[in-house]
């Protein structure tokens, strides 16, 4: 029984690490795309210092994209730091050592209780980025459909790649949100079980 418990625990801890890494990738790609999409549009401002009103949305896009992605990375890094301690201890646990396994379970529950808000924020950030990038894909699709860039030209091929990249990052953001949602459902269930366990343990303690 303990072997199964330890394996399940390891699988979940490793999956959570994968979840954080997925978020890092999403955040890094968000930075890359906000730069790639907005910087060419505001190049005259950067190079010649000439400001035009139509640059404002692109300037805003670059700033918001950066801010969201940095926030996303910071949240992920904070979670990773606490989580790594659990991973390190888990690697040293023997399958026969019930007390050590329970110790890791207690640490994991304590970690989740403390970081519930940050984990939910990660999910929200993924959703915001996903929806935002899907919205930015709409004008790109319209431009392609309207053949604003004649096929065969380098700029048209580049536009297709930018569009595919935007859709891929949007999908990653929404995927990260869905797995965070599944994760929180499972762990919320566990916390409610520990609340029920608390009532039973209280009765035992009070004799």
């Amino acid at each position: 029984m303990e072997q199964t418990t330890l394996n399940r625990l390891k699988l979940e801890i490793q999956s959570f690490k994968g979840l954080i890494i997925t978020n890092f990738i999403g955040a890094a790609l968000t930075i890359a795309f906000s730069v790639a999409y907005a910087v060419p549009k505001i190049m005259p401002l950067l190079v010649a210092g000439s400001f035009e009103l139509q640059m404002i949305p692109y300037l805003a896009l670059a700033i918001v994209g950066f801010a969201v992605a940095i926030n996303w990375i910071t949240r992920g890094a904070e979670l990773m730091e606490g989580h790594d301690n659990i991973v390190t201890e888990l690697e040293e646990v023997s399958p026969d050592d019930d007390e050590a396994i329970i110790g890791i379970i207690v640490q994991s529950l304590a970690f989740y209780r403390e970081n519930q808000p940050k984990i939910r924020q990660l999910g929200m950030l993924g959703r915001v980025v996903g929806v935002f990038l899907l919205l930015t894909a709409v004008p790109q699709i319209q431009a392609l459909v309207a053949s604003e860039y004649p096929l065969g030209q380098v700029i048209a091929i580049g536009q297709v790649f930018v569009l595919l990249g935007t859709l891929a990052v949007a999908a990653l953001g929404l995927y990260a949100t869905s797995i965070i949602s599944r994760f929180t459902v499972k762990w919320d269930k566990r916390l409610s079980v520990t609340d029920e366990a608390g009532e039973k343990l209280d009765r035992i303690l009070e004799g």
Partner: protein
Amino acid sequence: MKGKRTQYEIYWEILTYCRNPRTFTSIIHRCSLNSKIGQEHIGFLEDKGYLRRFEDEGQNLLRTTDDAMPFLDAFREMYLELFDRGPDFKL
């Protein structure tokens, strides 16, 4: 140990650690408690008879008593079950 633990989880940590005799300082260090909270928890467990205080070679030590076994057994069973039959998460 970081994070938010329930009082039962802290009791479990103290009682498990004190299977071998321990000083107050080593308990609060190991269980990441401050002196005030540590004193409250240890005082509660002593009052209930789950921890016993004794002197050995000039050291004031605490040890878990047999009366704590029903709590430790129930805790073990309930928490292992969380990952034995509970919902699992994987990518």
